[in-house]
């Protein structure tokens, strides 16, 4: 006990990291499930269905498969870098999540540490960019070290692409930073009123003052650049499977491949979190605080899910799947009941809205993937440099002007 009371920061951080890592890894796995399901339903088919009820155990099966596959290293590869690259990609992808606040900073551990973010840095945004800017190494080194032409081309493409889009990504965010006057995530969200430009409050009493409204152009730029930054359709050129087989990870197999895969989804989650924080009000509820019934939304949602699962269990599932979905039903129902308990319902608001917003953005991602063709490399580059960058620069300049204009008028 002595150690725990002496080092509250360290202990809280370790606990939070462990829990967060577990949640994020599970979320990664089920994000693949979600993606496959959503795309399948868009394409009028079922998607994973056989491993577990509704394919719910598919991520587990995939993980096991990746673990037990033969791990092939090409004989001509640079072994050290070849092994380093996937670790780099995944660890950087996961590190960024430590900076994200999933709920209001006012919710505290008994020892006075925030529950919902691992670290609360004053320049969190800058650090997030610092970490994501390193992400290109994983991809570039993987492409180079495989000693394969397809991988090399993929690696070159991706390093060029990520550098170019990082510029637009950063600049599209600066507008929000100018409005909020801070680099701290919690302050960017608006949980703590900051000076005259604090964003809490509502227009017309119900439209939340989120940055997406004054910074709509910035939001669009950010979303586009973020998709390019995470190598997703229509900007998935580094791994364009019909051109470069699998791009930079052509030669990777087994768990190293899985690590790239997880890194990609971790990056998706990170940029979605960032979009949520910067533009969509983070963990804030979209409804005015006076509407207290919203506290029961998470519980009600889970109960609804439980009802659907129960119906589905009885009407559709047979055999072992019935048992599996029954467990899901019980979990959802129990969780729903717990979430209806007022103190918990109040405490869970932040993460609930945060997750809901992230899921909306992720759904948008997946939807894009199912709809759009892929850009060509030169088109991608000219899109980034000739359209996205000027637009986000213009957005920045206009925002700056709007902020400075009153000061200039005063003299």
């Amino acid at each position: 006990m002595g150690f725990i009371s002496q080092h509250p920061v360290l202990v809280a951080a370790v606990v939070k990291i462990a829990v967060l890592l577990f949640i994020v890894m599970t979320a990664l796995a089920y994000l693949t499930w979600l993606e496959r399901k959503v795309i399948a339903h868009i394409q009028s088919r079922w998607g994973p269905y056989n491993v577990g009820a509704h394919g719910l155990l598919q991520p587990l099966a995939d993980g096991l498969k990746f673990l037990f596959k033969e791990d092939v290293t090409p004989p001509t590869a640079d072994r050290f870098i070849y092994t380093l690259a996937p670790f780099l990609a995944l660890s950087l992808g996961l590190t960024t999540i430590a900076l994200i606040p999933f709920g209001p900073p006012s919710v505290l551990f008994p020892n006075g540490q925030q529950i919902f973010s691992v670290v609360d840095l004053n320049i969190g945004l800058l650090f997030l960019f610092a970490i994501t800017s390193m992400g290109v190494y994983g991809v570039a080194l993987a492409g180079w070290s495989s000693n394969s032409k397809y991988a090399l081309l993929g690696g070159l493409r991706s390093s060029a692409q990520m550098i170019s889009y990082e510029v637009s990504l950063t600049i599209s965010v600066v507008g929000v930073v100018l409005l909020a006057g801070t680099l701290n995530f919690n302050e960017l969200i608006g949980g703590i009123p900051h000076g005259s430009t604090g964003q809490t409050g509502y227009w017309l009493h119900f439209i939340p003052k989120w940055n997406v409204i004054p910074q709509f152009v910035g939001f669009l730029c950010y979303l586009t650049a973020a998709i390019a930054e995470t190598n997703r359709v229509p900007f998935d050129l580094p791994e364009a499977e019909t051109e470069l087989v699998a791009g930079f990870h052509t030669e990777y197999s087994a768990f190293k491949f899985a690590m790239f895969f997880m890194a990609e989804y971790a990056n998706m989650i990170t940029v979605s979190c960032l979009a949520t924080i910067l533009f969509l009000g983070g963990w804030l509820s979209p409804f005015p605080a006076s509407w207290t019934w919203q506290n029961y939304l998470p519980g009600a949602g889970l109960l609804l899910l439980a009802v659907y699962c129960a119906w589905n269990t009885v009407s559709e599932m047979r055999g072992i799947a019935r048992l599996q979905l029954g467990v899901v039903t019980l979990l959802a129902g129990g969780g729903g009941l717990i979430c209806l308990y007022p103190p918990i319902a109040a405490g869970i608001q932040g993460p609930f809205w945060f997750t809901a917003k992230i899921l909306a953005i992720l759904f948008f991602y997946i939807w894009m993937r199912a709809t759009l063709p892929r850009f060509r490399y030169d088109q991608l580059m000219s899109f980034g440099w000739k359209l996205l960058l000027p637009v986000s620069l213009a957005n920045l300049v206009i925002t700056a002007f709007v902020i400075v204009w009153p000061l200039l008028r005063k003299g």
Partner: protein
Amino acid sequence: MTTKTTLIETPAGPAKAMVLNMGPQHPSTHGVLRVVLELDGEIVLSARPEIGYLHTGIEKSCESKTYSQCITLTDRIDYLAPLSNNLGFCLAAEKLIGIEVPKRAQYIRVLLTELTRITSHLVWLGTHAIDLGAMTVFLYSFREREEIMKIYEYVSGQRMMTSYFRIGGLALEPPPDWLDRVRRVMDALPGHIDEYEDLLTQNRIWMARTKGVGCLSAEDAIAIGASGPLLRGSGVAYDVRKAFPYSSYDEFDFNVQTQTAGDCFARYQVRVAEIRESIKIVRQAMEKVTPDGPFRAEAPGIIPPSREEMKTSIEGLIYHFKIFTEGFAPPPGEVYQAIESPRGELGVFMASDGSAKPYRVKFRAPSFVNLQSLPKLCEGRLIADVVACIGTTDIVLGEVDR
């Protein structure tokens, strides 16, 4: 680290070329095509198709089989349009023998080959779209293709290798309610085609990827010998169905679809328009096909007698036995019969020496000839365009290599 790229020693100036073997195992070479690309960065300096990985020697095999036995081989040439190949071979054999197929069988043949054109174009649309990254169209178009495959199965008992057209007519009398199925599919199809066009035609990325890519002028197309949508996309209105009507295509009302741009987008438009034209032809054919009537020509000794005749009359039994054991012997001579397969002019050159086996069969495969245009289409462009160009030439490697 061994060298991945070679710095070519050129006295004139720095030239850094990387030789990339695209294929024979590659997701977008539609089988086992190998394209040797010389790259400067992402720019293709030269593209050289290397073929022969699927060479099955069908032409040689035909020489040791009777005419009717060869039909099963023709399914395997262009495995995306087996009925077109059946038709080409049967028409050539019929021309060689000199028999006329009853009108009803001709209409059914037209109907089914147009369905084949639709399925083939649907596969093309799907694979071309997935080549350019639009994966949903692929699954949609395969859904529609599946419906048509079910019709094949219903009519002939087989989904792909149907061998349904036989010399002198058809293999079987189609089931009585098959036209209702066709009608159902044809009623739904135009809506689905609109759906694909919604997804692609006005899509800016799609346009950017296909417009102005892989341009082929009309003169080049003719010089290369391109046919089918590749030729029509370059503005040459040559369609064997119109120019040299066969199987009573002259009785059908349809238009030859052309575009003048000659790029990938033009070929895309031509093919989509052709699907719509094919639906039109199928609808007309459905009107023309009578519920009963002969489905085979009457030619004792060449066309097998009906099942009933075989079982009840001694001549029928003898003919049946002779046809299926030693075949029949057309007069010596050579014929060349061209049909419009989904990929272009499918020509069957057949030489007979008066024996029961074809002396020489040559399939003028449209994919084989169209593939020659690949270097012209993609040299000086980017790798991604190579994929688009391979896509819009719509090759089937089974047909290229035969």
